[in-house]
């Protein structure tokens, strides 16, 4: 058994998978530690990947060579496009997956990655060298010691995970699995302040006990949309979801049992996500609401399990059965297992650098739910970021500086490390001030040069990207050069014509032979319809980039700069910012102090490439 690695990733969830892949693909000998090698990339909660804002993350992970998108494409049993009429930037893809299939694929792909070793067991902590304050390895619960230079913790809900179901308590991060009891100790020892967050999941229902007749059926889109650039040569049978509602009787049962809810009794101290409340929370907070919507979502092709989306709860199991049976269609429902809440340890993400490395210990990285986020997609995006930056750290290179105008992934990194969060952080499109630029359709373009420069992309992906770009260029060329006569006096290019709100791509089919694929056509239409707005936003970004790229003299003495707190001076001296962007990220830096320093140390704008800024 190998015991020496370049990097060790603790946790085989969505974050751990992407972190391990990035490290292994970049050639680092990497160990992935998981309780169970058959549960790599498990979907612990709902059976869907994507959704508004989240789907953008999946596209971005795919653009950097990640696995989440392609696994979801393979395992999809229903695919839907949301927000179709609300504008191209917020159109989002949501895919229901066969959970077992998804996990099998992930386990298989990860186990066949070169340079990657899967290590089953529980990590009981990490070791470090006190004098250099660098991580040195991972201690396993069975006593084994694994050596490495870099550790990535992607422990999800497993650090001191505690599950609640009525007054039952069980230790674990997911039903049927144990918790990582000792990892938290290591983090606290090096100086991280941990705090508890909470999340919940609904009961799973037996499909054969549900009366689906009479319930509204939700079909998937006939056209199945893909996340990944990889060609699709597979297609699982497609299933429908069903919609039902709670009613006053349901609410009565829930209200009568508020007393047995660990959420209201104060037993659960962790903060849960506001946008994903438990059903008891909804009933309490909106007493006037007559009903709440429930989506009945199949969890796979070969399982009876139905996920009742919107019904997460930690009420006692018998109460869950009682209130579920008041619901239309669920009159004689049987539970495969009850819902529960889980409370777990998290770190404050502002204690991490932009590369997700701990500010308390060099070589230690954290990603995913442990950084106070929620969601598979948010976890995957962070895992990828931590993996990339851990590999750069192993090469003695600078971390990638997050560029909010380039991706939601980097927006998330910037939000977490600069502002932090008090509740589980979920991605929304409204979190980005560059929303019009950050679309599903251009994710691969936005991140291509970053992925390419880091060596994250396969030759096949690069070829695909090249042909997409060529297609786009030829379509733009054709639209720009061919003209259309509007009336006696006015002749305009097809591109100008397409800018009109009432003109769709299909209207041009007489003028152009349709030799481009749908991805190209979507991009062209967005370019035409949003030309002015995009141009404005690009200018804004360019201006900001120019200002932020102003280089600073790092040797300048800032003691005595008026308005600068001692804390800010110390932080300045500790990190010696190289430019205005880095300077602005020092916490406690007031605008006035910032200007004073720029005045003192500014060297003027430098031509800094997009990759470093």
């Amino acid at each position: 058994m190998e015991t020496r690695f370049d990097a060790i990733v603790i946790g085989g969830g969505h974050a751990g998978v992407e972190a391990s892949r990035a490290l292994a693909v970049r050639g680092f000998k990497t160990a992935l530690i998981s309780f169970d090698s058959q549960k790599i990339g498990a979907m612990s909660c709902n059976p869907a990947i994507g959704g508004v804002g989240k789907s953008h993350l999946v596209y971005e992970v795919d653009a950097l060579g990640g696995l989440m998108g392609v696994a979801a494409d393979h395992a999809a049993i229903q695919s839907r496009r949301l927000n179709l009429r609300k504008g191209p930037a917020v159109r989002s893809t949501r895919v229901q997956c066969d959970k077992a299939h998804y996990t099998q694929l992930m386990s298989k792909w990860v186990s066949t990655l070169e340079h990657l070793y899967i290590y089953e067991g529980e990590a009981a902590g990490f070791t470090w060298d006190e004098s250099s304050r660098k991580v040195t390895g991972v201690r396993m619960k069975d006593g084994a010691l694994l050596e490495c230079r870099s550790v990535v913790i992607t422990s999800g809900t497993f650090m001191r995970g505690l599950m609640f179901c009525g007054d039952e308590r069980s230790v674990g991060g997911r039903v049927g699995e144990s918790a990582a009891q000792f990892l938290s100790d290591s983090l606290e020892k090096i100086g991280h302040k941990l705090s508890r967050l909470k999340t919940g999941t609904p009961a799973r229902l037996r499909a054969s006990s549900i009366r689906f007749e009479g319930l509204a059926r939700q079909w998937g889109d006939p056209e199945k949309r893909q996340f990944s650039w990889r060609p699709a040569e597979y297609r699982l049978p497609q299933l429908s979801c069903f919609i039902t509602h709670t009613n006053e009787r349901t609410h009565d049962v829930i209200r009568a049992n508020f007393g047995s809810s660990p959420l209201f009794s104060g037993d659960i101290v962790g903060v849960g996500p506001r946008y994903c409340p438990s059903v008891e929370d909804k009933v309490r907070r909106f007493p006037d609401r007559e009903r709440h919507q429930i989506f009945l979502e199949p969890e796979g092709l070969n399982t009876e399990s139905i996920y009742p989306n919107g019904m997460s709860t930690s009420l006692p199991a018998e109460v869950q059965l009682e209130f579920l049976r008041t619901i239309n269609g669920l009159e004689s429902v049987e539970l495969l297992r009850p819902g529960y809440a889980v409370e777990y340890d998290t770190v404050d993400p502002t204690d991490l650098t932009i590369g997700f490395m701990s500010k308390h210990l060099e070589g230690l990285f954290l990603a995913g739910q442990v950084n106070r986020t929620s969601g598979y997609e948010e976890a995957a995006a962070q895992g990828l970021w931590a993996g990339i930056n851990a590999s750069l750290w192993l090469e003695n290179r600078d971390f990638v500086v997050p560029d909010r105008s380039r991706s939601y992934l980097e927006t998330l990194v910037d939000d977490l490390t600069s502002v932090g969060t008090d509740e589980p952080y979920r991605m929304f499109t409204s979190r980005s001030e560059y929303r019009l630029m950050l679309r599903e359709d251009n994710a691969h373009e936005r991140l291509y040069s970053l992925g390419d420069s880091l060596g994250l992309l396969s030759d096949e992906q690069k070829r695909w990207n090249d042909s997409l770009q060529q297609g786009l260029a030829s379509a733009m060329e054709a639209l720009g050069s061919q003209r259309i006569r509007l009336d006696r006096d006015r002749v305009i290019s097809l591109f100008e014509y397409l800018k009109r709100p009432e003109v769709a791509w299909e209207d041009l089919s007489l003028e152009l032979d349709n030799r481009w694929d749908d991805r190209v056509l979507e991009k062209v239409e967005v370019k035409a319809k949003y030309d002015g707005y995009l141009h404005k936003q690009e200018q804004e970004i360019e201006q900001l980039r120019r200002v932020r790229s102003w280089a600073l003299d790092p040797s300048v003495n800032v003691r005595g700069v008026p308005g600068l707190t001692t804390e800010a001076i110390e932080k300045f001296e500790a990190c010696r910012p190289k430019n205005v962007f880095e300077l602005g990220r020092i916490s406690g830096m007031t605008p006035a102090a910032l200007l004073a320093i720029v005045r003192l140390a500014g060297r003027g704008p430098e031509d800094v490439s997009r990759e470093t800024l």
Partner: protein
Amino acid sequence: MALATAIGGPVAVLRVSGRDLSFLVPLIGTLPLPGEAKFRRLHSLDKHFLDEAVVLRFQAPHSFTGEDVIEIQGHGVPALVEKIQEEAIALGAITALPGEFSFRAVLNQKMTLEEASRLQTLFAAEGLGASAASKLLSFGSSSDESVNRIFQEALTAVAAARGRVEAAIDFAEAEDEQAHDIASAELRLLEVERQLQGLLNSYEVFARNARTPTVILFGKPNAGKSTLLNLLVGGTRSLVSPTAGTTRDYVEVHLRTPSGQSFRLLDTAGLRSSLQNVDGIEAAGMRLGLEMMESADVLVWVEDARIPTKTFDHPQVDALLATKTHLKIYTHADLLGGSQDLGQAYDLVGDQSPNAARAVLDFVDQVCRTRRLDGDAALEGAKLISQRQEMLVRDALGETREALRCLRGERSLEIIGDLLRQLDKHLRGARGEALTDDYIGQIFTQFCLGK
């Protein structure tokens, strides 16, 4: 270092601001104690006596800039003042950029960007009445508060509208149909539009009152404009300074009427009628003249009484004359023989010439009086008084209108979301919140930094 007084007065005040001003010791002797005024003999580096002066010291942060400030009050002899400045520079002082004292005060949190912006307005508007000036300086007054209340209400309304729009986008599957109620966003924005328009209207009232009125002399070449200008300059003692124009095509002087109203007087290049051939340079001069006439407060048409006309025979000028307040002065009346009745006809030489100048001054006075309607009362109603706020509110109003157009039209929700985000940012800026990036933008655009 900056000279605080105009050159030519009896006393010259030189101010030096910085963190450590002990470098000035060779020039002024030991530094006075903070808050102290000392009589000092100033010496050059080679120990030559320069001037006698009163030297004051303000200690950080109790000064205008928030830094240590030394103020040297010496005799207002231009050559001497220049020499003292040279000595200070030799010792290590640097000449302040325009507005740098205010800028440093902002940096050191002695004043906000908004306050600095109002000071700039104050210094730029020489014709400012006392009431307008006081208003500019009364930071945090009740009118400031009422403006801030309007901004706060607008921000709340925008936040509510944004909430609706963003919820409709980000919770596409959510059951809460109220969250998708976009119509209420429209009502909110209509109210914002009304409020912002009110603010802009009030700024116009203020700006009209605060600005130095501009009077333009125009007419055909050789009609006598320059002679009239010379008469006006000679006939008033309160000439500020004759300034050469930015191009050689016009001359600008600052004057005051006998009743104290100050104004800018511009003498434009002669305008020919559009039918005549003009060369490129002359055409450019005429274009500039026309542009200035567009924004002028009073037009004075100077015409040779021997060749009187009804119209100017130039479409743009005639259009301006139809809408703008103007006075027509006929010149060369002495050469006419007095047989024709031309109203205000003057000869610009001899005993009668001061009458022409007086006619212009009286007319300026009269126009300024009527334009102010009820004077200070109009000013009282002005809520928005700084140019910085005005620009931000103008942006915000534009975004509100476009968002409303989008809400009624076919534009997608994400565009509306984007407009509302910008709107929020501009309103915050107008209220005085400045984001770091905005601050950075300010310094790079307004102050020439970088070494």
